[in-house]
């Protein structure tokens, strides 16, 4: 089975082990340490870590298409945001009549805009199962249509990057419009509860954190399963020599489409878990800057490793939290510098450094190995 194979891999076992250990330790420190202890993990930190894990899942999704398929998507923020909006719509409907205007079905912003009834695409989002399906379907469908058109006409490389960027830019402009019915500029916010649990309680926050950790684990295993399968090898072949793979008889565009859609769905799940934790979703998640930031997490961590993407996402976002806290002006300098330094001096990212060290420890490199490295 392609899904169980990665579980026998050493690297996956290590990754899952570290992830679960982190989940357990953070939960234990949060639950059992007294609040004045230095080791106590506040619920603010738990949510922050949960946010990092969402970003990590998103980075894994990007690494799947960039690292193993050679498609540099500058629009994965769009899939993330679509998943987020699907979840946000569910959370909005859960507010019910507890909104500021107290309308039984309409969210506050619609009452404010003098809308009389719910737009058709908001129906069904009061049911959790429907919303959760939409979390997968909305980004998946967009990726399917977009990918079908793009891969069929063999748009690849830089062209594809730029049109994915245009895609997310167009969606951002669209979601900024009040007429779209997604809250315009302000987005969706003021959520009350999820599946009956109050979002403001510590227990729910911890639960969401753990859920995100599990989602990351599952996402990682799925990606690992794909890349170690035969499909994954064909996909790597597409990355390295698309024309040759096509001449060997593989339907390159189908492989690309499948991997792209899976990646978009993973990004959607990441977005859906992100929204209840940060409490808001607005069109800025669609901004091209965010999408390209994701790529730099992956680049820093190391392409085509998956675990590198997780490391990169957590590191960069931790740095962002620290920087924007103490000197907000310096953050863009640091981020910009990171882009340049990583691409020029660290093309294989942190994972590349780790592998090099490991190799140096275990064996003296032979000339043959160096040639292939």
């Amino acid at each position: 089975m392609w899904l169980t194979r990665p579980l026998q891999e050493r690297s996956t076992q290590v990754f899952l082990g570290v992830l679960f250990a982190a989940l357990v330790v953070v939960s234990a420190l949060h639950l059992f340490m007294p609040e004045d202890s230095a080791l106590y993990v506040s619920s603010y930190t738990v949510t922050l870590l949960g946010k990092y894990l969402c970003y990590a899942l998103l980075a894994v999704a990007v690494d799947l298409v960039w690292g193993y398929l050679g498609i540099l998507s500058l629009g994965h923020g769009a899939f993330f945001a679509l998943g987020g909006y699907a979840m946000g719509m569910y959370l909005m409907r859960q507010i019910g009549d507890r909104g500021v205007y107290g309308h039984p079905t309409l969210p506050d912003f619609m009452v404010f805009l003098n809308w009389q009834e719910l737009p058709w695409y908001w129906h069904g989002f009061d049911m959790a199962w429907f919303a959760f399906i939409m979390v997968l379907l909305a980004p998946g469908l967009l990726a399917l249509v977009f990918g079908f058109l793009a891969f069929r006409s063999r748009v690849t490389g830089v062209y594809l990057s730029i049109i994915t960027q245009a895609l997310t830019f167009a969606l951002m402009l669209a979601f900024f419009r009040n007429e779209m019915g997604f809250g315009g500029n302000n987005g969706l916010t003021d959520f009350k509860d999820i599946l009956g649990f109050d979002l403001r309680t510590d227990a729910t926050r911890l639960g969401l954190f753990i859920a995100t950790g599990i989602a990351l684990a599952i996402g990682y295993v799925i990606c690992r399963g794909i890349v170690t399968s035969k499909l994954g090898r064909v996909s790597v072949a597409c990355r390295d020599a698309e024309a040759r793979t096509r001449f060997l008889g593989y339907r390159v565009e189908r492989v690309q489409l499948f991997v792209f859609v899976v990646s978009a769905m993973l990004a959607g799940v990441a977005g859906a878990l992100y929204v209840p934790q940060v409490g808001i979703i607005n069109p800025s998640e669609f901004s091209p800057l965010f999408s390209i930031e994701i790529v730099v997490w992956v680049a820093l961590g190391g392409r085509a490793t998956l675990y590198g993407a997780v490391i990169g996402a957590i590191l960069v976002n931790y740095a962002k939290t620290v920087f924007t806290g103490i000197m907000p002006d310096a953050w863009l300098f640091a981020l910009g510098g990171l882009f340049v330094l990583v691409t020029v001096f660290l093309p294989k990212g942190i994972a590349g450094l780790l592998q090099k060290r490991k190799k140096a420890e275990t064996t003296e490199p032979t000339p043959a190995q160096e040639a292939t490295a």
Partner: protein
Amino acid sequence: MGITGSLSRLLLVCLLLWPAMATAQVDDSEAQQLLTALAESSFAEKKDVVNRIAGSGDERARIWLEAFAANKLARIESTGQFVIVLSNRGRDWDVESATTGESLGEVSRRDIDTIRVNNSLRSELESILSVIDLKSPNEDSRLTAARALRGNVDDGLADQLPDLIEAETASDVRLALTEALAIYQVEEQGDRSAVAVLSGSLNSDARAALQNAARSDDPALAAAANKALESIEQKLKFNRAAETLYFGLSLGSVLVLAAIGLAITFGVMGVINMAHGELIMLGAYTTWGMQQLLPGQPGLALILSIPAGFLVAALAGIAIERTVIQHLKGRPLETLLATFGVSLILQQLVRTVISPLNRTVITPDWMSGSVMINEALSLTLNRMYVIGFALVVFAGLMLIMRKTRLGLEVRAVTQNRAMARSMGIKATKVDILTFGLGSGVAGLAGVALSQITNVGPNLGQNYIIDSFMVVVFGGVGNLWGTLLAGLSLGTINQLLEPWAGAVLAKILVLVFIILFIQKRPKGLFPQKGRAAEG
């Protein structure tokens, strides 16, 4: 009719004499006499006196009558001098002599005897004043007066208008007067023949008159008016189309300017420079800086900014090429990321060093204002300059690429680097110069953009996606394609805007390009032959 009749005869006389007395002045004693008559006669007699003043041909008559209508013509009781009151606040009033125009300082309010005017006189004065204006030797003031007349013609004036039209030499003044008369004839007399005069007019008063006539009881008049309105509507439609086209071309030329540098660096060299927008921004900030260096001379500063903006952006571009891009040769996706990092750094640099807020760049006088094509269509000058500038820059680039040694070497290196080098071309030097050229053109775009949009740290970001779209849409490596793509995308955007709104229009254009690239991945004008490979 008695008074207006005599008035018109009088005016006719002076009209015939008018060229001779255009700058004439009656002597001071006569002026004194006229004004005294005005001051001392009854309201009924004052009309005659007013006509005599207007007919005197004195160039000061207008000032006197205007002051009279505004209750500001007065006589100082103690001296008998006639004055014009400049300010009537407080106890002492500021006055100047009505005859010589020299300031007489402040005079006690009690000593000033204002010459009284009533409402019927005032309305009479209005048309007399406009007739005086119509006879002014200055063509511009005649035109202004004639245009203001439309819809404001009264019976007395209507009698004089045919003669004025006859005597008028300037064709546009004559046209305005004819229209003014025709509006009067349509509105007051239901004159069907006058409708024909108005049928081509774009004036709103003319249209209002026709619309009234179209609702009249006289079916023949209504039919004629409707027909005239139809032809006006046709004309207006044409004007609106012309205006949309102009806005489209103007937006398109901005896109061309922003994208043409990219067409060199991305299209010809194949380097993805995401910091291109920030090079545009540097050009715009150079203009701002130049204006800070040369305060009070925005025009000179702007002209100097053209070479300065080119140089600043070109040097910045070369610095980027040397420090970042050359290490990433053959790895386009990495180049994209690294230059994106550079763009973030440049943006933040401007925010930190200059200001996160928008800077004001002054538009010089000779670029502000607009050219009036006709009454329904006026084109703003600054946009016209930008269109012209874009075309000049395009032509210049075309020349460089086609006719110079550099252009030849650039094309050689991009087509086959190894072969070009073996022919003795210094590929590295060509890289530097090409990238500098493309970046410098981005700087030029910034100089132009500073005239029509806000200069701020986000300026470049707003154009980068559009620029790439234009280059990709036009076909990579094809300057003509970029020109056509920019202009057509700008026009499409403007065509969509009226019914879709600005944001939706932009979205639709983006979606259109995304779909277009699916259909034709290599753009409008794909490269053919060997240059297309690799």
